[in-house]
Protein backbone atom coordinates (compact mmCIF):
# COMPACT_ATOMS: atom_id res chain seq x y z
CA UNK A 1 0.00 0.00 0.00
CA UNK A 2 2.96 2.27 -0.64
CA UNK A 3 1.33 3.80 -3.66
CA UNK A 4 -1.71 5.74 -2.52
CA UNK A 5 -3.09 5.62 -6.01
CA UNK A 6 -2.95 1.87 -6.19
CA UNK A 7 -6.27 0.13 -6.36
CA UNK A 8 -6.82 -1.59 -3.05
CA UNK A 9 -8.56 -4.77 -2.44
CA UNK A 10 -11.60 -4.67 -0.21
CA UNK A 11 -9.68 -6.34 2.65
CA UNK A 12 -6.82 -3.86 2.39
CA UNK A 13 -9.19 -0.90 2.42
CA UNK A 14 -10.91 -2.33 5.49
CA UNK A 15 -7.57 -2.87 7.24
CA UNK A 16 -6.53 0.69 6.39
CA UNK A 17 -9.76 2.19 7.72
CA UNK A 18 -9.53 0.05 10.87
CA UNK A 19 -5.99 1.27 11.52
CA UNK A 20 -7.07 4.87 11.03
CA UNK A 21 -10.02 4.33 13.35
CA UNK A 22 -7.84 2.77 16.06
CA UNK A 23 -5.36 5.65 15.84
CA UNK A 24 -8.15 8.22 16.10
CA UNK A 25 -9.59 6.37 19.11
CA UNK A 26 -6.21 6.38 20.88
CA UNK A 27 -5.73 10.08 20.19
CA UNK A 28 -9.20 10.81 21.45
CA UNK A 29 -8.54 8.86 24.67
CA UNK A 30 -5.28 10.75 25.22
CA UNK A 31 -7.08 14.07 24.73
CA UNK A 32 -9.81 12.95 27.13
CA UNK A 33 -7.15 12.24 29.77
CA UNK A 34 -5.63 15.70 29.27
CA UNK A 35 -9.06 17.33 29.45
CA UNK A 36 -9.92 15.36 32.60
CA UNK A 37 -6.70 16.55 34.28
CA UNK A 38 -7.44 20.10 33.20
CA UNK A 39 -10.99 19.76 34.54
CA UNK A 40 -9.59 18.87 37.96
CA UNK A 41 -7.26 21.89 37.84
CA UNK A 42 -10.08 24.10 36.61
CA UNK A 43 -12.42 22.89 39.34
CA UNK A 44 -9.73 23.60 41.94
CA UNK A 45 -9.16 27.04 40.42
CA UNK A 46 -12.92 27.71 40.42
CA UNK A 47 -13.13 26.57 44.01
CA UNK A 48 -10.29 28.89 44.89
CA UNK A 49 -12.17 31.74 43.25
CA UNK A 50 -10.71 35.11 44.00
CA UNK A 51 -9.13 33.81 47.22
CA UNK A 52 -5.44 34.34 47.51
CA UNK A 53 -4.58 31.05 49.19
CA UNK A 54 -4.24 27.76 47.34
CA UNK A 55 -6.95 25.17 46.93
CA UNK A 56 -5.73 21.59 46.91
CA UNK A 57 -7.49 18.43 45.80
CA UNK A 58 -7.57 14.99 47.31
CA UNK A 59 -9.72 12.07 46.15
CA UNK A 60 -11.94 14.35 44.11
CA UNK A 61 -12.58 16.79 46.97
CA UNK A 62 -11.26 20.31 47.19
CA UNK A 63 -9.75 21.87 50.28
CA UNK A 64 -8.99 25.51 50.95
CA UNK A 65 -5.61 25.98 52.61
CA UNK A 66 -6.20 28.37 55.51
CA UNK A 67 -2.64 29.50 56.18
CA UNK A 68 -0.16 31.34 53.97
CA UNK A 69 2.50 29.18 55.58
CA UNK A 70 2.77 26.85 58.52
CA UNK A 71 5.37 24.88 60.36
CA UNK A 72 5.26 21.10 60.46
CA UNK A 73 7.99 19.01 62.06
CA UNK A 74 10.27 22.08 62.19
CA UNK A 75 9.86 22.68 58.45
CA UNK A 76 8.08 25.76 57.10
CA UNK A 77 5.61 24.87 54.35
CA UNK A 78 4.05 27.52 52.13
CA UNK A 79 0.51 27.16 50.87
CA UNK A 80 1.80 26.87 47.30
CA UNK A 81 4.05 23.95 48.31
CA UNK A 82 0.98 21.88 49.12
CA UNK A 83 -0.18 21.90 45.50
CA UNK A 84 2.81 19.83 44.53
CA UNK A 85 2.84 17.58 47.59
CA UNK A 86 -0.07 15.18 47.27
CA UNK A 87 1.39 12.98 50.01
CA UNK A 88 1.35 15.79 52.56
CA UNK A 89 -2.16 16.82 51.52
CA UNK A 90 -3.29 13.21 52.01
CA UNK A 91 -1.68 13.19 55.47
CA UNK A 92 -3.32 16.47 56.49
CA UNK A 93 -6.71 15.26 55.24
CA UNK A 94 -6.30 11.96 57.10
CA UNK A 95 -5.36 13.85 60.27
CA UNK A 96 -8.38 16.16 59.83
CA UNK A 97 -6.02 19.07 60.08
CA UNK A 98 -7.70 22.45 60.65
CA UNK A 99 -5.24 23.84 58.11
CA UNK A 100 -7.49 22.51 55.35
CA UNK A 101 -11.14 23.45 54.95
CA UNK A 102 -13.31 21.21 52.80
CA UNK A 103 -15.12 23.24 50.19
CA UNK A 104 -18.00 22.21 48.01
CA UNK A 105 -17.10 21.09 44.52
CA UNK A 106 -18.39 23.76 42.15
CA UNK A 107 -21.15 22.54 39.89
CA UNK A 108 -20.17 22.22 36.24
CA UNK A 109 -21.66 24.83 33.99
CA UNK A 110 -24.48 23.55 31.79
Amino acid sequence: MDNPNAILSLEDRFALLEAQFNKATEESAAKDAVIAAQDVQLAAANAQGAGALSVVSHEGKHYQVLAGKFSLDDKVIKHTDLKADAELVAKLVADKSPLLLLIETPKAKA
Partner: protein
Amino acid sequence: MDIQEIQTEWGIYYRDGGQNLARVLKKQYLSSQTEALFGLIPTDDTSYQLAIAELSRVLQPFQLGWTPLGDLKVSPITLTQTPFKVDIEENPDKLENSWLGFLADKNLNRAEWPFVRYLVEEHLYSRMDEDYELNEIYFGKFAAPTPGTPGAAGTGMDGIRTLINREIASPTSRITPIAMGAIPTDPKAFCEYIEAFVDKFTLRYRGQAMEVCMNLTLARRYAKGRHEKYKTDIADPTARKILDGTGAALLTSPIEFTNHTVVGLLSMGDSMKIWATNKDNRKRMAKKTVNTKQVRIESAKRQVSIYTDFYKGLGFPIPEALFTNEQDLTL
Protein backbone atom coordinates in the same frame (compact mmCIF):
# COMPACT_ATOMS: atom_id res chain seq x y z
CA MET B 1 -36.75 47.47 81.69
CA ASP B 2 -38.76 44.31 82.15
CA ILE B 3 -40.52 44.05 85.51
CA GLN B 4 -43.43 41.99 84.25
CA GLU B 5 -42.70 39.00 86.49
CA ILE B 6 -42.46 41.20 89.60
CA GLN B 7 -45.84 42.75 88.86
CA THR B 8 -47.43 39.41 88.06
CA GLU B 9 -46.12 37.90 91.28
CA TRP B 10 -46.57 40.76 93.71
CA GLY B 11 -49.18 42.99 92.09
CA ILE B 12 -49.36 46.23 90.18
CA TYR B 13 -48.94 48.43 93.19
CA TYR B 14 -46.28 49.68 95.57
CA ARG B 15 -46.56 49.08 99.29
CA ASP B 16 -43.66 50.02 101.53
CA GLY B 17 -42.88 46.71 103.16
CA GLY B 18 -39.35 47.68 104.08
CA GLN B 19 -37.91 46.45 100.80
CA ASN B 20 -34.75 48.15 99.61
CA LEU B 21 -31.73 47.55 97.41
CA ALA B 22 -30.30 45.06 99.88
CA ARG B 23 -33.13 42.77 98.83
CA VAL B 24 -32.47 43.19 95.11
CA LEU B 25 -29.86 40.60 94.40
CA LYS B 26 -27.56 40.98 91.45
CA LYS B 27 -26.46 38.35 88.98
CA GLN B 28 -22.69 38.12 88.95
CA TYR B 29 -21.09 39.72 85.93
CA LEU B 30 -17.83 38.42 84.51
CA SER B 31 -14.93 40.80 84.64
CA SER B 32 -12.76 41.92 81.77
CA GLN B 33 -9.42 40.22 82.32
CA THR B 34 -7.91 39.76 78.87
CA GLU B 35 -7.48 43.48 78.31
CA ALA B 36 -5.06 43.66 81.25
CA LEU B 37 -2.60 41.53 79.28
CA PHE B 38 -2.17 44.31 76.73
CA GLY B 39 0.02 47.36 77.18
CA LEU B 40 -1.85 50.62 76.69
CA ILE B 41 -1.10 53.13 73.94
CA PRO B 42 -3.25 56.13 74.83
CA THR B 43 -3.86 57.87 71.53
CA ASP B 44 -6.56 59.80 69.76
CA ASP B 45 -5.44 58.31 66.44
CA THR B 46 -7.92 55.77 65.22
CA SER B 47 -5.21 54.41 62.97
CA TYR B 48 -1.91 54.25 64.83
CA GLN B 49 1.19 53.86 62.73
CA LEU B 50 4.40 52.17 63.82
CA ALA B 51 7.39 50.90 61.92
CA ILE B 52 9.61 47.90 62.41
CA ALA B 53 13.21 48.11 61.29
CA GLU B 54 15.71 45.35 60.68
CA LEU B 55 19.29 45.52 59.41
CA SER B 56 20.35 42.64 57.20
CA ARG B 57 23.76 40.93 57.45
CA VAL B 58 26.72 43.32 57.63
CA LEU B 59 29.66 41.12 58.67
CA GLN B 60 31.75 39.81 55.80
CA PRO B 61 35.22 38.39 55.20
CA PHE B 62 37.94 41.02 54.61
CA GLN B 63 39.13 41.99 51.14
CA LEU B 64 40.80 45.16 49.82
CA GLY B 65 37.98 46.00 47.45
CA TRP B 66 34.99 48.04 48.68
CA THR B 67 32.04 45.62 48.93
CA PRO B 68 29.07 47.25 50.64
CA LEU B 69 26.70 44.87 52.42
CA GLY B 70 23.66 45.46 54.61
CA ASP B 71 20.27 47.06 54.11
CA LEU B 72 18.03 48.55 56.73
CA LYS B 73 14.52 47.43 55.95
CA VAL B 74 11.72 49.39 57.56
CA SER B 75 8.18 48.02 57.30
CA PRO B 76 4.93 49.71 58.25
CA ILE B 77 2.64 48.50 61.03
CA THR B 78 -0.84 49.87 61.51
CA LEU B 79 -2.96 49.34 64.60
CA THR B 80 -6.56 50.45 64.48
CA GLN B 81 -9.21 51.20 67.04
CA THR B 82 -12.93 51.32 66.50
CA PRO B 83 -15.71 53.19 68.26
CA PHE B 84 -18.12 51.61 70.72
CA LYS B 85 -21.16 53.13 72.32
CA VAL B 86 -23.83 52.50 74.92
CA ASP B 87 -27.36 53.82 74.36
CA ILE B 88 -29.93 53.01 77.03
CA GLU B 89 -33.40 54.42 77.19
CA GLU B 90 -35.64 53.86 80.21
CA ASN B 91 -39.00 54.99 81.45
CA PRO B 92 -38.64 54.78 85.25
CA ASP B 93 -42.32 55.61 85.84
CA LYS B 94 -42.98 51.91 85.30
CA LEU B 95 -41.47 51.29 88.72
CA GLU B 96 -44.01 53.24 90.69
CA ASN B 97 -46.77 50.64 90.57
CA SER B 98 -44.59 47.73 91.59
CA TRP B 99 -42.66 46.18 94.46
CA LEU B 100 -39.67 48.12 93.07
CA GLY B 101 -41.38 51.45 93.79
CA PHE B 102 -38.64 52.42 96.24
CA LEU B 103 -36.41 53.08 93.21
CA ALA B 104 -38.81 55.83 92.05
CA ASP B 105 -38.88 59.36 93.39
CA LYS B 106 -41.06 62.45 93.51
CA ASN B 107 -38.48 64.53 91.60
CA LEU B 108 -39.89 65.52 88.20
CA ASN B 109 -36.46 65.03 86.70
CA ARG B 110 -36.41 61.26 86.25
CA ALA B 111 -32.65 61.32 85.68
CA GLU B 112 -32.23 61.93 89.41
CA TRP B 113 -34.29 58.98 90.55
CA PRO B 114 -32.44 56.31 92.56
CA PHE B 115 -33.16 53.79 89.82
CA VAL B 116 -30.88 55.54 87.34
CA ARG B 117 -27.96 55.65 89.73
CA TYR B 118 -28.54 52.00 90.65
CA LEU B 119 -28.66 50.96 86.99
CA VAL B 120 -25.47 52.76 86.10
CA GLU B 121 -23.36 52.00 89.15
CA GLU B 122 -24.44 48.44 89.84
CA HIS B 123 -24.99 47.11 86.37
CA LEU B 124 -23.93 49.21 83.43
CA TYR B 125 -20.15 49.29 83.86
CA SER B 126 -20.00 45.62 84.89
CA ARG B 127 -22.10 44.59 81.92
CA MET B 128 -19.91 46.62 79.57
CA ASP B 129 -16.84 44.79 80.87
CA GLU B 130 -18.52 41.42 80.44
CA ASP B 131 -19.69 42.20 76.92
CA TYR B 132 -16.21 43.31 75.96
CA GLU B 133 -14.63 40.19 77.42
CA LEU B 134 -17.06 37.65 76.04
CA ASN B 135 -17.94 39.13 72.66
CA GLU B 136 -15.33 41.54 71.46
CA ILE B 137 -11.76 41.26 72.70
CA TYR B 138 -11.17 37.74 71.40
CA PHE B 139 -14.06 36.77 69.12
CA GLY B 140 -14.75 40.25 67.73
CA LYS B 141 -14.90 40.72 63.98
CA PHE B 142 -15.80 44.21 62.89
CA ALA B 143 -18.88 44.70 60.76
CA ALA B 144 -20.41 48.08 60.06
CA PRO B 145 -23.79 48.26 61.81
CA THR B 146 -27.04 48.67 59.89
CA PRO B 147 -28.20 52.26 60.34
CA GLY B 148 -30.95 52.47 62.91
CA THR B 149 -30.38 48.97 64.34
CA PRO B 150 -28.02 48.04 67.20
CA GLY B 151 -25.03 46.14 65.80
CA ALA B 152 -24.72 42.44 66.60
CA ALA B 153 -22.58 41.21 69.48
CA GLY B 154 -18.97 40.63 68.46
CA THR B 155 -19.00 43.08 65.53
CA GLY B 156 -17.59 46.14 67.29
CA MET B 157 -13.92 45.53 66.66
CA ASP B 158 -11.39 43.07 65.30
CA GLY B 159 -10.50 40.90 68.27
CA ILE B 160 -7.47 38.72 68.94
CA ARG B 161 -8.78 35.77 66.94
CA THR B 162 -9.58 37.87 63.90
CA LEU B 163 -6.24 39.68 64.00
CA ILE B 164 -4.30 36.42 64.18
CA ASN B 165 -6.37 34.55 61.60
CA ARG B 166 -6.38 37.43 59.15
CA GLU B 167 -2.60 37.59 59.24
CA ILE B 168 -2.31 33.81 58.88
CA ALA B 169 -4.68 33.87 55.89
CA SER B 170 -2.44 36.28 54.04
CA PRO B 171 -0.27 34.67 51.33
CA THR B 172 2.62 36.67 52.76
CA SER B 173 1.73 35.80 56.34
CA ARG B 174 4.21 36.86 59.00
CA ILE B 175 2.72 34.45 61.52
CA THR B 176 3.62 30.80 61.05
CA PRO B 177 1.13 28.55 62.84
CA ILE B 178 2.74 25.47 64.31
CA ALA B 179 1.00 22.28 63.18
CA MET B 180 0.76 20.29 66.40
CA GLY B 181 -2.04 17.86 65.53
CA ALA B 182 -5.13 17.19 67.58
CA ILE B 183 -5.23 18.61 71.11
CA PRO B 184 -4.91 15.75 73.63
CA THR B 185 -7.73 15.27 76.10
CA ASP B 186 -5.46 13.56 78.60
CA PRO B 187 -4.00 16.21 80.97
CA LYS B 188 -0.48 14.80 81.02
CA ALA B 189 -0.41 14.42 77.24
CA PHE B 190 -1.69 17.97 76.93
CA CYS B 191 1.07 19.22 79.24
CA GLU B 192 3.57 17.58 76.89
CA TYR B 193 1.76 19.10 73.90
CA ILE B 194 2.29 22.57 75.40
CA GLU B 195 5.92 21.83 76.16
CA ALA B 196 6.45 20.70 72.55
CA PHE B 197 4.59 23.80 71.34
CA VAL B 198 6.83 26.25 73.19
CA ASP B 199 9.91 24.32 72.09
CA LYS B 200 9.02 25.24 68.52
CA PHE B 201 9.09 29.00 69.11
CA THR B 202 11.81 30.56 66.98
CA LEU B 203 15.13 31.03 68.75
CA ARG B 204 14.95 34.80 68.35
CA TYR B 205 12.00 35.01 70.72
CA ARG B 206 12.02 31.73 72.63
CA GLY B 207 13.94 33.12 75.58
CA GLN B 208 11.55 35.99 76.19
CA ALA B 209 8.88 35.54 78.83
CA MET B 210 5.53 34.88 77.20
CA GLU B 211 2.00 34.27 78.32
CA VAL B 212 0.75 31.19 76.47
CA CYS B 213 -2.95 31.95 76.21
CA MET B 214 -5.72 29.38 75.86
CA ASN B 215 -9.29 28.81 76.93
CA LEU B 216 -10.03 28.02 80.56
CA THR B 217 -10.75 24.35 79.97
CA LEU B 218 -7.34 23.87 78.36
CA ALA B 219 -5.59 25.93 81.03
CA ARG B 220 -7.10 23.74 83.73
CA ARG B 221 -6.13 20.66 81.74
CA TYR B 222 -2.57 21.93 81.55
CA ALA B 223 -2.44 22.67 85.28
CA LYS B 224 -3.62 19.14 86.07
CA GLY B 225 -1.27 17.59 83.52
CA ARG B 226 1.69 19.56 84.78
CA HIS B 227 0.96 18.47 88.32
CA GLU B 228 0.60 14.89 87.19
CA LYS B 229 3.86 15.04 85.28
CA TYR B 230 6.05 16.80 87.79
CA LYS B 231 4.25 16.60 91.13
CA THR B 232 6.68 19.21 92.40
CA ASP B 233 4.48 22.25 92.45
CA ILE B 234 2.33 21.46 95.46
CA ALA B 235 4.01 24.15 97.52
CA ASP B 236 4.18 26.58 94.60
CA PRO B 237 1.34 29.06 94.93
CA THR B 238 1.73 30.28 91.35
CA ALA B 239 0.88 26.84 90.12
CA ARG B 240 -2.20 26.43 92.26
CA LYS B 241 -4.12 29.54 91.30
CA ILE B 242 -7.58 28.91 90.10
CA LEU B 243 -10.09 31.23 88.60
CA ASP B 244 -12.21 32.68 91.32
CA GLY B 245 -15.96 33.13 91.13
CA THR B 246 -15.91 36.65 89.79
CA GLY B 247 -13.40 35.86 87.10
CA ALA B 248 -11.15 38.58 88.48
CA ALA B 249 -8.02 36.43 88.70
CA LEU B 250 -6.27 34.72 85.85
CA LEU B 251 -5.67 31.01 85.83
CA THR B 252 -1.92 30.74 85.42
CA SER B 253 0.59 27.91 85.50
CA PRO B 254 4.29 28.09 84.71
CA ILE B 255 5.76 25.97 81.93
CA GLU B 256 8.71 23.97 83.18
CA PHE B 257 12.20 24.84 81.92
CA THR B 258 10.99 28.00 80.16
CA ASN B 259 10.19 31.62 80.90
CA HIS B 260 6.63 31.06 79.73
CA THR B 261 3.37 30.83 81.61
CA VAL B 262 0.08 29.26 80.63
CA VAL B 263 -2.79 31.70 81.02
CA GLY B 264 -6.44 30.73 80.84
CA LEU B 265 -8.66 33.38 79.33
CA LEU B 266 -12.38 33.66 79.81
CA SER B 267 -12.63 35.53 76.54
CA MET B 268 -11.50 32.54 74.50
CA GLY B 269 -14.70 30.56 75.09
CA ASP B 270 -14.29 27.14 73.53
CA SER B 271 -11.75 28.19 70.91
CA MET B 272 -8.98 25.63 70.56
CA LYS B 273 -6.49 28.23 69.46
CA ILE B 274 -3.41 28.63 71.64
CA TRP B 275 -1.39 31.80 71.15
CA ALA B 276 1.65 33.29 72.79
CA THR B 277 3.69 36.43 72.49
CA ASN B 278 5.75 38.66 74.72
CA LYS B 279 4.32 41.57 76.69
CA ASP B 280 5.84 44.24 74.43
CA ASN B 281 4.07 42.73 71.46
CA ARG B 282 0.60 42.97 73.00
CA LYS B 283 -0.73 46.48 72.53
CA ARG B 284 -4.10 48.03 73.02
CA MET B 285 -5.24 51.46 72.08
CA ALA B 286 -7.80 53.58 73.77
CA LYS B 287 -9.39 56.90 73.03
CA LYS B 288 -11.79 58.67 75.38
CA THR B 289 -11.02 55.99 78.00
CA VAL B 290 -12.54 58.09 80.74
CA ASN B 291 -15.90 57.44 79.10
CA THR B 292 -15.70 53.74 79.92
CA LYS B 293 -16.41 54.75 83.53
CA GLN B 294 -18.69 57.71 83.01
CA VAL B 295 -21.97 58.24 81.22
CA ARG B 296 -24.15 61.13 80.19
CA ILE B 297 -27.65 60.99 81.65
CA GLU B 298 -30.38 63.08 80.09
CA SER B 299 -34.08 63.21 80.72
CA ALA B 300 -36.50 64.37 78.10
CA LYS B 301 -40.05 64.64 79.35
CA ARG B 302 -40.41 61.42 81.36
CA GLN B 303 -37.81 59.34 79.57
CA VAL B 304 -34.22 58.92 80.66
CA SER B 305 -31.41 58.40 78.18
CA ILE B 306 -28.04 57.07 79.31
CA TYR B 307 -25.15 57.04 76.90
CA THR B 308 -21.42 56.96 76.49
CA ASP B 309 -18.92 56.26 73.73
CA PHE B 310 -15.24 55.47 73.44
CA TYR B 311 -12.72 53.71 71.22
CA LYS B 312 -10.90 50.42 71.69
CA GLY B 313 -8.43 48.49 69.59
CA LEU B 314 -5.76 45.80 69.80
CA GLY B 315 -2.72 44.83 67.85
CA PHE B 316 0.43 42.74 67.65
CA PRO B 317 3.14 45.05 66.26
CA ILE B 318 5.56 42.23 65.41
CA PRO B 319 3.57 39.33 63.98
CA GLU B 320 6.70 37.17 63.74
CA ALA B 321 6.90 37.22 67.52
CA LEU B 322 3.44 35.70 67.88
CA PHE B 323 3.21 31.91 68.02
CA THR B 324 0.07 29.88 67.65
CA ASN B 325 -1.10 26.37 66.90
CA GLU B 326 -3.06 25.47 63.78
CA GLN B 327 -6.50 25.30 65.41
CA ASP B 328 -9.52 27.56 64.81
CA LEU B 329 -8.21 29.29 61.69
CA THR B 330 -11.42 30.31 59.94
CA LEU B 331 -12.09 34.00 59.65
